[in-house]
Protein backbone atom coordinates (compact mmCIF):
# COMPACT_ATOMS: atom_id res chain seq x y z
CA UNK A 1 0.00 0.00 0.00
CA UNK A 2 1.38 3.34 -0.95
CA UNK A 3 -0.77 6.13 0.41
CA UNK A 4 1.36 8.76 -1.28
CA UNK A 5 -0.33 9.77 -4.53
CA UNK A 6 -3.47 7.84 -3.65
CA UNK A 7 -6.80 9.13 -4.89
CA UNK A 8 -8.99 7.86 -2.07
CA UNK A 9 -7.68 6.86 1.28
CA UNK A 10 -9.19 5.73 4.55
CA UNK A 11 -7.48 5.48 7.91
CA UNK A 12 -8.54 3.66 11.07
CA UNK A 13 -12.24 3.47 10.22
CA UNK A 14 -14.55 2.34 12.98
CA UNK A 15 -18.23 1.83 12.47
CA UNK A 16 -20.66 -0.11 14.62
CA UNK A 17 -24.33 -0.94 14.09
CA UNK A 18 -25.62 -1.25 17.59
CA UNK A 19 -23.26 -3.40 19.64
CA UNK A 20 -21.72 -5.23 16.66
CA UNK A 21 -18.73 -3.53 15.06
CA UNK A 22 -18.80 -3.62 11.27
CA UNK A 23 -15.47 -1.88 10.84
CA UNK A 24 -12.82 -2.05 13.50
CA UNK A 25 -9.90 0.05 12.40
CA UNK A 26 -9.91 -0.49 8.64
CA UNK A 27 -7.35 1.18 6.35
CA UNK A 28 -7.65 1.48 2.60
CA UNK A 29 -6.09 3.34 -0.31
CA UNK A 30 -6.65 3.35 -4.04
CA UNK A 31 -4.77 5.09 -6.86
CA UNK A 32 -6.18 6.64 -10.01
CA UNK A 33 -6.97 4.01 -12.59
CA UNK A 34 -6.55 1.17 -10.13
CA UNK A 35 -9.07 -1.65 -9.70
CA UNK A 36 -9.08 -2.95 -6.13
CA UNK A 37 -11.16 -5.90 -5.04
CA UNK A 38 -12.49 -5.82 -1.49
CA UNK A 39 -13.01 -9.41 -0.45
CA UNK A 40 -14.06 -11.22 2.63
CA UNK A 41 -16.74 -13.49 4.01
CA UNK A 42 -20.26 -12.14 4.27
CA UNK A 43 -20.83 -9.91 7.26
CA UNK A 44 -17.16 -9.00 7.38
CA UNK A 45 -17.83 -5.30 6.76
CA UNK A 46 -17.06 -5.09 3.02
CA UNK A 47 -20.14 -3.07 2.16
CA UNK A 48 -19.77 -0.87 5.20
CA UNK A 49 -16.24 -0.06 4.07
CA UNK A 50 -17.54 0.84 0.61
CA UNK A 51 -20.27 3.04 2.05
CA UNK A 52 -17.78 4.85 4.26
CA UNK A 53 -15.37 5.33 1.36
CA UNK A 54 -18.14 6.77 -0.79
CA UNK A 55 -19.32 9.11 1.94
CA UNK A 56 -22.75 7.47 2.05
CA UNK A 57 -22.38 6.78 5.74
CA UNK A 58 -20.15 8.48 8.22
CA UNK A 59 -17.77 6.28 10.22
CA UNK A 60 -17.87 6.52 14.00
CA UNK A 61 -14.21 7.45 13.91
CA UNK A 62 -11.38 7.58 11.41
CA UNK A 63 -10.96 9.65 8.27
CA UNK A 64 -11.71 9.24 4.58
CA UNK A 65 -9.72 11.51 2.31
CA UNK A 66 -10.56 12.04 -1.35
CA UNK A 67 -8.03 14.29 -3.11
CA UNK A 68 -7.94 17.44 -1.00
CA UNK A 69 -11.26 16.73 0.73
CA UNK A 70 -11.72 14.97 4.02
CA UNK A 71 -15.06 13.31 3.26
CA UNK A 72 -15.61 12.68 6.94
CA UNK A 73 -15.63 16.44 7.58
CA UNK A 74 -17.81 17.47 4.65
CA UNK A 75 -21.46 18.36 5.09
CA UNK A 76 -24.06 15.95 3.83
CA UNK A 77 -24.87 18.27 0.95
CA UNK A 78 -21.22 18.60 -0.11
CA UNK A 79 -20.79 14.84 0.12
CA UNK A 80 -23.86 14.36 -2.08
CA UNK A 81 -22.52 16.87 -4.59
CA UNK A 82 -19.20 15.03 -4.66
CA UNK A 83 -20.95 11.71 -5.21
CA UNK A 84 -22.88 13.23 -8.10
CA UNK A 85 -19.83 14.64 -9.81
CA UNK A 86 -16.90 12.36 -8.98
CA UNK A 87 -18.27 8.94 -8.01
CA UNK A 88 -20.21 6.28 -9.84
CA UNK A 89 -22.10 3.37 -8.35
CA UNK A 90 -23.07 -0.14 -9.38
CA UNK A 91 -25.02 -2.32 -6.99
CA UNK A 92 -26.07 -5.92 -7.00
CA UNK A 93 -29.73 -5.36 -7.98
CA UNK A 94 -32.71 -3.07 -7.69
CA UNK A 95 -30.86 0.06 -8.58
CA UNK A 96 -32.62 1.17 -11.74
CA UNK A 97 -35.66 3.39 -11.30
CA UNK A 98 -38.42 1.09 -12.57
CA UNK A 99 -40.56 3.87 -14.05
CA UNK A 100 -37.82 5.41 -16.15
CA UNK A 101 -36.65 3.93 -19.42
CA UNK A 102 -33.13 2.54 -19.54
CA UNK A 103 -32.00 5.62 -21.39
CA UNK A 104 -33.52 7.93 -18.80
CA UNK A 105 -31.96 5.86 -16.04
CA UNK A 106 -28.52 6.29 -17.55
CA UNK A 107 -29.11 9.99 -18.09
CA UNK A 108 -30.30 10.45 -14.51
CA UNK A 109 -26.91 11.19 -12.83
CA UNK A 110 -26.12 13.78 -15.48
CA UNK A 111 -29.50 15.40 -15.02
CA UNK A 112 -29.07 15.40 -11.24
CA UNK A 113 -25.86 17.29 -11.96
CA UNK A 114 -27.73 19.89 -13.96
CA UNK A 115 -27.08 18.72 -17.52
CA UNK A 116 -29.89 19.51 -19.94
CA UNK A 117 -32.12 16.61 -20.85
CA UNK A 118 -31.18 16.42 -24.55
CA UNK A 119 -27.46 16.50 -23.90
CA UNK A 120 -27.76 14.04 -21.00
CA UNK A 121 -29.70 11.59 -23.12
CA UNK A 122 -27.27 11.92 -26.01
CA UNK A 123 -24.36 11.02 -23.76
CA UNK A 124 -26.40 8.27 -22.12
CA UNK A 125 -27.05 6.77 -25.54
CA UNK A 126 -23.30 6.76 -26.28
CA UNK A 127 -22.67 4.76 -23.15
CA UNK A 128 -25.48 2.33 -23.87
CA UNK A 129 -23.93 1.76 -27.28
CA UNK A 130 -20.54 1.24 -25.74
CA UNK A 131 -21.93 -1.38 -23.37
CA UNK A 132 -23.71 -3.02 -26.33
CA UNK A 133 -27.22 -2.43 -24.96
CA UNK A 134 -28.32 0.53 -27.07
CA UNK A 135 -31.34 -1.49 -28.23
CA UNK A 136 -32.70 -1.28 -24.68
CA UNK A 137 -32.87 2.53 -24.62
CA UNK A 138 -36.66 2.76 -24.75
CA UNK A 139 -37.34 -0.25 -22.53
CA UNK A 140 -38.10 -0.11 -18.85
CA UNK A 141 -35.88 -2.00 -16.40
CA UNK A 142 -38.70 -4.45 -15.68
CA UNK A 143 -38.54 -5.62 -19.31
CA UNK A 144 -34.81 -6.41 -19.55
CA UNK A 145 -32.80 -9.36 -18.26
CA UNK A 146 -30.57 -9.23 -15.22
CA UNK A 147 -27.38 -9.05 -17.26
CA UNK A 148 -28.76 -6.32 -19.50
CA UNK A 149 -29.93 -4.39 -16.46
CA UNK A 150 -26.45 -4.59 -14.91
CA UNK A 151 -24.94 -3.26 -18.13
CA UNK A 152 -27.39 -0.38 -18.05
CA UNK A 153 -26.38 0.21 -14.44
CA UNK A 154 -22.72 0.25 -15.45
CA UNK A 155 -23.48 2.72 -18.20
CA UNK A 156 -25.18 4.84 -15.58
CA UNK A 157 -22.19 4.61 -13.25
CA UNK A 158 -19.83 5.66 -16.03
CA UNK A 159 -21.89 8.34 -17.74
CA UNK A 160 -20.56 11.15 -15.56
CA UNK A 161 -16.98 9.93 -16.23
CA UNK A 162 -16.43 9.54 -12.50
CA UNK A 163 -12.98 9.30 -10.96
CA UNK A 164 -14.01 6.48 -8.63
CA UNK A 165 -16.53 3.74 -9.35
CA UNK A 166 -17.93 1.85 -6.40
CA UNK A 167 -19.22 -1.56 -7.37
CA UNK A 168 -20.92 -3.60 -4.65
CA UNK A 169 -21.26 -7.21 -5.78
CA UNK A 170 -22.06 -6.07 -9.33
CA UNK A 171 -22.31 -9.67 -10.57
CA UNK A 172 -23.97 -11.09 -7.47
CA UNK A 173 -27.28 -11.64 -9.20
CA UNK A 174 -25.89 -12.87 -12.53
CA UNK A 175 -24.87 -16.26 -13.89
CA UNK A 176 -21.16 -16.73 -14.52
CA UNK A 177 -21.28 -15.99 -18.25
CA UNK A 178 -23.14 -12.71 -17.75
CA UNK A 179 -21.04 -11.94 -14.72
CA UNK A 180 -17.83 -12.34 -16.70
CA UNK A 181 -19.16 -10.16 -19.48
CA UNK A 182 -20.23 -7.44 -17.09
CA UNK A 183 -16.90 -7.50 -15.27
CA UNK A 184 -15.03 -7.34 -18.56
CA UNK A 185 -17.04 -4.33 -19.68
CA UNK A 186 -16.74 -2.58 -16.33
CA UNK A 187 -12.98 -2.94 -15.97
CA UNK A 188 -12.37 -2.12 -19.59
CA UNK A 189 -14.46 1.03 -19.43
CA UNK A 190 -12.82 2.02 -16.15
CA UNK A 191 -9.36 1.55 -17.66
CA UNK A 192 -10.31 3.64 -20.67
CA UNK A 193 -11.52 6.51 -18.51
CA UNK A 194 -8.72 6.10 -15.94
CA UNK A 195 -11.35 5.65 -13.22
CA UNK A 196 -10.45 3.85 -10.02
CA UNK A 197 -12.77 0.97 -9.14
CA UNK A 198 -13.56 -0.20 -5.63
CA UNK A 199 -14.99 -3.64 -6.26
CA UNK A 200 -16.69 -5.38 -3.37
CA UNK A 201 -17.12 -9.08 -4.04
CA UNK A 202 -16.91 -12.41 -2.36
CA UNK A 203 -16.23 -14.23 -5.62
CA UNK A 204 -12.62 -14.95 -6.41
CA UNK A 205 -13.21 -15.05 -10.14
CA UNK A 206 -14.69 -11.55 -10.02
CA UNK A 207 -11.89 -10.35 -7.78
CA UNK A 208 -9.43 -11.67 -10.36
CA UNK A 209 -10.44 -8.77 -12.62
CA UNK A 210 -8.87 -6.40 -10.09
CA UNK A 211 -5.26 -5.27 -9.98
CA UNK A 212 -5.00 -6.26 -6.35
CA UNK A 213 -7.23 -7.34 -3.56
CA UNK A 214 -7.89 -6.30 0.00
CA UNK A 215 -9.37 -8.79 2.43
CA UNK A 216 -11.75 -7.58 5.11
CA UNK A 217 -11.95 -9.90 8.06
CA UNK A 218 -13.53 -9.05 11.41
CA UNK A 219 -13.82 -5.40 10.43
CA UNK A 220 -10.15 -5.00 9.56
CA UNK A 221 -8.94 -4.55 5.98
CA UNK A 222 -5.71 -6.32 5.12
CA UNK A 223 -3.57 -5.95 2.06
CA UNK A 224 -3.09 -9.40 0.58
CA UNK A 225 0.18 -10.96 1.74
CA UNK A 226 2.96 -10.80 -0.78
CA UNK A 227 1.09 -8.49 -3.13
CA UNK A 228 3.00 -5.63 -4.71
Amino acid at each position, binding site marked *: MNPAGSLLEARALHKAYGPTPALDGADFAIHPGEVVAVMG*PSGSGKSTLLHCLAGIIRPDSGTVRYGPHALTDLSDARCSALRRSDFGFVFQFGQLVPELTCLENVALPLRLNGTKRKEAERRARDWLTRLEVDDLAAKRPGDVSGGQGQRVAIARALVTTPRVIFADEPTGALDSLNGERVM*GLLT*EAARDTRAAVVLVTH*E*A*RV*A*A*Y*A*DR*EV*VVRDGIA*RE*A*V*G*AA
Partner: protein
Amino acid sequence: MSIGHTLLGLLESGPRHGYDLKRAFDEHFGQDRPLHYGQVYSTMSRLLKNGLVEVDGVEAGAGPERKRYAITDAGITDVAQWLARPEKPEPYLQSTLYTKVVLALLTDRDAAELLDTQRAEHLRLMRGLTERKRTGDLADQLICDHALFHLEADLRWLELTAARLDKLAEAVGG
Protein backbone atom coordinates in the same frame (compact mmCIF):
# COMPACT_ATOMS: atom_id res chain seq x y z
CA MET B 1 -4.54 -36.75 -21.23
CA SER B 2 -3.98 -39.68 -23.54
CA ILE B 3 -1.61 -38.51 -26.30
CA GLY B 4 -2.17 -41.75 -28.23
CA HIS B 5 -5.92 -41.22 -28.48
CA THR B 6 -5.46 -37.55 -29.28
CA LEU B 7 -3.12 -38.29 -32.16
CA LEU B 8 -5.41 -41.03 -33.41
CA GLY B 9 -8.28 -38.60 -33.34
CA LEU B 10 -6.29 -36.05 -35.31
CA LEU B 11 -5.60 -38.69 -37.96
CA GLU B 12 -9.29 -39.37 -38.47
CA SER B 13 -9.70 -36.35 -40.73
CA GLY B 14 -7.01 -37.77 -43.10
CA PRO B 15 -3.46 -39.19 -43.27
CA ARG B 16 -0.67 -36.93 -41.94
CA HIS B 17 3.09 -36.82 -41.55
CA GLY B 18 4.46 -37.04 -38.03
CA TYR B 19 5.52 -33.40 -38.26
CA ASP B 20 1.99 -32.32 -39.24
CA LEU B 21 0.60 -34.28 -36.33
CA LYS B 22 2.82 -32.46 -33.85
CA ARG B 23 1.85 -29.09 -35.33
CA ALA B 24 -1.87 -29.86 -35.19
CA PHE B 25 -1.57 -31.12 -31.62
CA ASP B 26 0.31 -28.03 -30.48
CA GLU B 27 -2.14 -25.74 -32.15
CA HIS B 28 -5.19 -27.19 -30.37
CA PHE B 29 -3.94 -28.55 -27.10
CA GLY B 30 -0.36 -27.60 -26.56
CA GLN B 31 -0.69 -24.05 -25.31
CA ASP B 32 1.17 -24.80 -22.12
CA ARG B 33 3.23 -27.85 -23.12
CA PRO B 34 4.23 -28.42 -26.77
CA LEU B 35 4.81 -32.03 -27.86
CA HIS B 36 8.35 -33.31 -28.53
CA TYR B 37 9.09 -35.12 -31.81
CA GLY B 38 10.30 -38.05 -29.76
CA GLN B 39 6.89 -38.39 -28.13
CA VAL B 40 5.18 -38.42 -31.51
CA TYR B 41 7.61 -41.01 -32.86
CA SER B 42 7.32 -43.38 -29.89
CA THR B 43 3.55 -43.03 -29.71
CA MET B 44 3.12 -43.71 -33.43
CA SER B 45 5.26 -46.85 -33.28
CA ARG B 46 3.13 -48.14 -30.40
CA LEU B 47 -0.07 -47.43 -32.38
CA LEU B 48 1.47 -49.16 -35.48
CA LYS B 49 2.33 -52.17 -33.41
CA ASN B 50 -1.26 -52.35 -32.10
CA GLY B 51 -2.69 -52.05 -35.61
CA LEU B 52 -4.50 -48.83 -34.94
CA VAL B 53 -2.59 -46.92 -37.66
CA GLU B 54 -0.77 -47.94 -40.80
CA VAL B 55 1.94 -46.29 -42.85
CA ASP B 56 0.25 -44.70 -45.78
CA GLY B 57 3.46 -43.84 -47.60
CA VAL B 58 7.02 -42.72 -47.16
CA GLU B 59 8.47 -39.61 -48.74
CA ALA B 60 11.72 -39.86 -50.50
CA GLY B 61 14.77 -39.23 -48.38
CA ALA B 62 13.85 -41.72 -45.71
CA GLY B 63 13.96 -41.02 -41.97
CA PRO B 64 11.16 -41.74 -39.50
CA GLU B 65 9.73 -38.28 -39.66
CA ARG B 66 8.96 -38.58 -43.36
CA LYS B 67 6.41 -41.37 -42.86
CA ARG B 68 2.77 -40.62 -43.57
CA TYR B 69 0.32 -42.28 -41.16
CA ALA B 70 -3.29 -43.22 -41.71
CA ILE B 71 -5.84 -44.49 -39.20
CA THR B 72 -7.21 -48.05 -39.47
CA ASP B 73 -10.75 -49.20 -38.78
CA ALA B 74 -9.60 -50.58 -35.46
CA GLY B 75 -8.14 -47.14 -34.74
CA ILE B 76 -11.45 -45.41 -35.47
CA THR B 77 -13.25 -47.85 -33.17
CA ASP B 78 -10.66 -47.18 -30.50
CA VAL B 79 -11.14 -43.38 -30.74
CA ALA B 80 -14.91 -43.76 -30.58
CA GLN B 81 -14.63 -45.97 -27.52
CA TRP B 82 -12.29 -43.51 -25.84
CA LEU B 83 -14.59 -40.54 -26.46
CA ALA B 84 -17.62 -42.45 -25.23
CA ARG B 85 -15.92 -43.53 -22.01
CA PRO B 86 -16.42 -40.97 -19.21
CA GLU B 87 -13.29 -39.77 -17.53
CA LYS B 88 -12.89 -40.69 -13.94
CA PRO B 89 -13.39 -37.55 -11.87
CA GLU B 90 -10.35 -36.47 -9.94
CA PRO B 91 -11.08 -37.23 -6.28
CA TYR B 92 -8.61 -34.61 -4.92
CA LEU B 93 -8.31 -36.53 -1.70
CA GLN B 94 -4.58 -36.14 -1.38
CA SER B 95 -3.95 -32.45 -0.88
CA THR B 96 -0.58 -30.91 -0.21
CA LEU B 97 -2.29 -27.86 1.18
CA TYR B 98 -4.20 -29.87 3.73
CA THR B 99 -1.02 -31.54 4.82
CA LYS B 100 0.70 -28.19 5.17
CA VAL B 101 -2.10 -26.74 7.27
CA VAL B 102 -2.21 -29.69 9.64
CA LEU B 103 1.57 -29.65 9.99
CA ALA B 104 1.52 -25.92 10.71
CA LEU B 105 -1.07 -26.51 13.42
CA LEU B 106 0.82 -29.44 14.89
CA THR B 107 4.03 -27.45 15.04
CA ASP B 108 2.34 -24.33 16.42
CA ARG B 109 3.10 -22.30 13.33
CA ASP B 110 0.65 -19.68 11.97
CA ALA B 111 -1.69 -21.66 9.79
CA ALA B 112 -3.81 -18.60 9.00
CA GLU B 113 -0.86 -16.84 7.47
CA LEU B 114 -0.08 -19.93 5.46
CA LEU B 115 -3.62 -19.89 4.11
CA ASP B 116 -3.50 -16.14 3.37
CA THR B 117 -0.25 -16.51 1.50
CA GLN B 118 -1.66 -19.37 -0.50
CA ARG B 119 -4.77 -17.37 -1.22
CA ALA B 120 -2.79 -14.42 -2.50
CA GLU B 121 -0.79 -16.78 -4.69
CA HIS B 122 -3.96 -18.34 -6.09
CA LEU B 123 -5.44 -14.94 -6.78
CA ARG B 124 -2.27 -13.78 -8.47
CA LEU B 125 -2.50 -16.74 -10.82
CA MET B 126 -6.19 -16.06 -11.36
CA ARG B 127 -5.46 -12.43 -12.24
CA GLY B 128 -2.94 -13.60 -14.77
CA LEU B 129 -5.39 -16.06 -16.31
CA THR B 130 -8.14 -13.41 -16.34
CA GLU B 131 -5.79 -11.03 -18.13
CA ARG B 132 -4.92 -13.72 -20.69
CA LYS B 133 -8.59 -14.46 -21.11
CA ARG B 134 -9.26 -10.79 -21.77
CA THR B 135 -6.78 -10.63 -24.61
CA GLY B 136 -7.06 -14.19 -25.93
CA ASP B 137 -9.43 -15.95 -28.29
CA LEU B 138 -12.27 -18.30 -27.42
CA ALA B 139 -9.94 -21.29 -26.99
CA ASP B 140 -7.84 -19.26 -24.57
CA GLN B 141 -10.93 -18.22 -22.67
CA LEU B 142 -12.22 -21.78 -22.31
CA ILE B 143 -8.90 -23.14 -21.21
CA CYS B 144 -8.37 -20.28 -18.75
CA ASP B 145 -11.91 -20.66 -17.41
CA HIS B 146 -11.24 -24.32 -16.75
CA ALA B 147 -8.25 -23.36 -14.69
CA LEU B 148 -10.04 -20.44 -13.05
CA PHE B 149 -12.91 -22.58 -11.88
CA HIS B 150 -10.50 -25.08 -10.36
CA LEU B 151 -8.55 -22.32 -8.69
CA GLU B 152 -11.75 -20.81 -7.42
CA ALA B 153 -12.67 -24.14 -5.91
CA ASP B 154 -9.30 -24.20 -4.15
CA LEU B 155 -9.89 -20.66 -2.94
CA ARG B 156 -13.26 -21.60 -1.52
CA TRP B 157 -11.60 -24.42 0.33
CA LEU B 158 -9.02 -21.96 1.62
CA GLU B 159 -11.77 -19.62 2.86
CA LEU B 160 -13.65 -22.45 4.51
CA THR B 161 -10.55 -23.80 6.18
CA ALA B 162 -9.56 -20.34 7.38
CA ALA B 163 -13.00 -19.99 8.96
CA ARG B 164 -12.63 -23.40 10.66
CA LEU B 165 -9.00 -23.22 11.75
CA ASP B 166 -9.88 -23.14 15.43
CA LYS B 167 -11.92 -26.29 15.23
CA LEU B 168 -9.29 -27.99 13.11
CA ALA B 169 -6.62 -27.05 15.66
CA GLU B 170 -8.71 -28.65 18.38
CA ALA B 171 -9.23 -31.79 16.30
CA VAL B 172 -5.59 -32.36 15.42
CA GLY B 173 -4.03 -30.97 18.56
CA GLY B 174 -6.27 -32.89 20.94
